[in-house]
């Protein structure tokens, strides 16, 4: 049976964004792969899932978020600690510049210290460039909650990264 052409197109258009979002939430490459797999299986087996959806990216991000939250709930605290120790998958591309490398590494660590709900908002705002209304729709929260979570998270990141950031500047 031929692969539906729109599935490949969907993958090409959205997989990178979904990968970065899920990796930021889960901090584990194998889990991220599982989430993407599950997501595309779901979409392929329910072709009508995307019918009438005006913002496919937002819809897929929401699906990825829900799957990631489910996976995190299934994992016990011990599993999470072991996983973190075993692999803290880097979210950012490897950099040649040593300052850039340190900055990216510290940012990845600081993001990992944020609660997942704040991390999700920061990711969608900074790297998906969504508005608070769009973030609210993806995460099923109010725009005000999205905005406040973002402010808290950015303050924490700024405090954590200030020494390095000032030094680089």
């Amino acid at each position, binding site marked *: 049976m031929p692969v539906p052409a729109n599935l490949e197109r969907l993958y090409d258009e959205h*997989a990178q964004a979904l*990968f970065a979002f899920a990796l930021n939430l889960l901090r584990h490459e194998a889990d991220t792969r599982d989430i*993407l797999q599950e997501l595309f299986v779901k*979409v392929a087996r329910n072709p009508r899932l995307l019918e009438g959806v005006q913002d496919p990216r937002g819809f897929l991000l929401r699906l990825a978020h829900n799957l990631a939250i489910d996976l995190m709930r299934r994992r016990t605290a011990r599993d999470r600690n072991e996983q973190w120790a075993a692999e803290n998958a880097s979210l950012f*591309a490897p950099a040649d510049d040593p300052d850039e490398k340190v900055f990216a590494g510290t940012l990845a660590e600081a993001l990992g210290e944020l609660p997942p709900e704040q991390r999700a908002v920061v990711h969608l705002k900074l*790297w998906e460039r969504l508005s608070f209304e769009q973030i609210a729709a993806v995460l099923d929260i109010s725009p005000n909650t999205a905005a406040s979570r973002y402010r808290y998270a950015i303050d924490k990141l700024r405090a954590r990264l200030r020494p390095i*950031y000032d030094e680089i500047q």
Partner: protein
Amino acid sequence: MNSGFEKRLQELPMREIPGQWKAQIVAVAQPQPAWWREWLWPCPRAWAGLAAAWLVILGMNLAAGKNPSRPGTATLAFSRQELLELRQQQQMLAKLISPGEAAETEPPRQVPAPRSERRITVIAI
């Protein structure tokens, strides 16, 4: 709205999705064929030929059933006759083995007398 700090964060390049994932994910995500198609998949023509052969055999069998020689009836008649003979043989055997018992068990048969020897009783009132 974005501060310099936020812009700085946005500029960091994100890691690329591993290239080999696409083939693996899309292969697994593609819809599974129906069970019957999965069964027939290796050689559908061979299965179709086999099915056609069975249909021909079934058709021939049905056509033969329309003009039966009814061998069952003859067998049934023969077997009844045989059964009767067997029963007679058994009775004879029983008489030969124990004639006394046979006489006791079997009630005396009333053989009808010839009409000329019948006695006519007339009762005059």
